[in-house]
């Protein structure tokens, strides 16, 4: 492991000042379940300065807001979200999705902010290959074993899959986040937080957060009336593993008719894939077996699987069929 220095600021302003002074050599350290592994993996892109934000007050909470929605501090542990009665009662799909992340031990350590902003888990990156995210200029996943950790929906230089289940489950609730930045607080939608691979501060990453910005809060609007939600995840083992494919559904129903829909796939692309074509097709229609048969072929028509991962698309379509069927009954 490379030599590192650790700062322990007690306010977001102080943390931002430290982050700004070290540029991309510094990174936020919270739960550590991603960052410390990157250091242990001896990745070139791992930071030399860790800004431990756990001493900052008031970033770890789950509270109702005036609109009837919920605010979740970025330092809130995943296990605390799973254990939350408010979340379980009002956002059961989020509770289920987060309860399926990794293992109980890691959910006790991992934070919501860390899950949203985690680095990809491509075996070539983590194995120290000189790929796009690690000081090189080639995606080994695109030409090697891409059966698990790589996109079946195309890529932009890097073909690794965005691994965060929390984002997949939050987008159907139209959730947003707050970022503390050197110029003040910014609010943006979850969808805009993780738009897929892009270049930020000269690095390829899945999210838009700059090196001197800190994710502080997740804002979840009030649940929709008559909502039916579902989260399903396919993975090699029942715990620990990342999604081969995942699906988060949020349907606003009027009797058996779908008034509005959110359909978001995870584990198949460099970002959570909100499938608007399917949402549009579902809107205004009666949720029945015939509709499921009609809509599944309309999903993921722009898929671009690599050599070994076409099954991810079949898995995702299967989840759409089973997810809608679950919500039908």
């Amino acid at each position: 492991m490379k030599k590192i220095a650790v700062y322990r600021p007690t306010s977001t302003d102080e943390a931002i000042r430290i982050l700004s002074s070290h540029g991309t050599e510094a990174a936020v350290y919270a739960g550590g379940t991603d960052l410390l592994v990157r250091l242990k993996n001896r990745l070139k892109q791992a930071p030399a300065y860790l800004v431990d934000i756990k001493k900052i007050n008031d970033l770890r909470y789950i509270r109702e807001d005036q609109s009837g929605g919920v605010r979740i501090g970025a330092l809130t542990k995943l296990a605390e979200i799973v254990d939350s009665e408010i979340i379980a009662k009002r956002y059961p799909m989020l509770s289920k999705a987060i309860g399926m992340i990794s293992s109980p031990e890691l959910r006790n350590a991992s934070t919501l902010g860390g899950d949203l902003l985690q680095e990809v888990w491509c075996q070539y990156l983590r194995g120290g290959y000189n790929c796009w995210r690690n000081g090189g200029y080639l995606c080994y996943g695109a030409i090697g074993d891409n059966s698990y950790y790589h996109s079946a929906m195309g890529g932009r230089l890097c073909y690794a899959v965005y691994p965060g289940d929390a984002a997949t489950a939050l987008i159907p609730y139209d959730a947003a986040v707050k970022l503390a930045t050197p110029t003040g607080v910014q609010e943006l939608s979850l969808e805009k937080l993780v738009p897929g691979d892009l270049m930020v501060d000269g690095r390829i990453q899945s999210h838009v957060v700059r090196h001197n910005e800190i994710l502080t809060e997740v804002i979840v609007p009030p649940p929709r009336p008559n909502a039916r939600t579902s989260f399903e995840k396919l993975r090699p083992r029942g715990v620990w593993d990342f999604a081969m494919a995942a699906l988060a559904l949020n349907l606003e129903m009027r009797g058996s008719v779908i008034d509005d829909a959110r359909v978001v796939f995870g584990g198949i692309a460099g970002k959570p894939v909100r499938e608007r074509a399917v949402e549009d097709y579902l809107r205004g229609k009666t949720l029945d077996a015939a509709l499921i048969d009609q809509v599944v072929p309309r999903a993921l028509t722009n898929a671009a699987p690599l050599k070994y991962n076409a099954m991810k698309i079949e898995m995702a379509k299967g989840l759409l069929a089973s997810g809608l069927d679950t919500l039908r009954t």
Partner: protein
Amino acid sequence: MTHVDAIIFEPLGSLTDSPSAPPYDDAVPALTELKALGLTLIAASSLPHDELTSFLDSSGLRGFFDGVSSAESTAGDRGVMLREALASAQIAPDHALFITDSADGLAAARAAGVHGVLMMNDPDEAMKLTAHNPAGGIVSLLELPDLVRFVSATRSAYFGG
């Protein structure tokens, strides 16, 4: 390498099948974006000059290119072909990429002092070709504008193969 001034393209369609073969699906949108970035674009091939220009004309790609170069005029030496093409465009080899899908192409790039970028059409073949130390690799021509921006953003001494 601090930035890219020019890109030399070898594979833009299945030319070995027929000079009238259609271009790759991603060729036109990629070339359009690269032209908008202000890059010098050169088409190069080991095929005879007439076959190459015939392909570029029939595929509608000719207008994108500032130069067309064939190894026919350099007795099959593609390294010399690359050097001459860049000299006539007044581009320093260190600021040029050569897009190729073969070991010979990577060797020619190295001989010319150009950065050879692997077009990874066939995954298994591409994995073998990584042993020839390409400067970079892409799956689609559409990734080239991002590659150009990435090189400029990182200004990396590493890029060079």
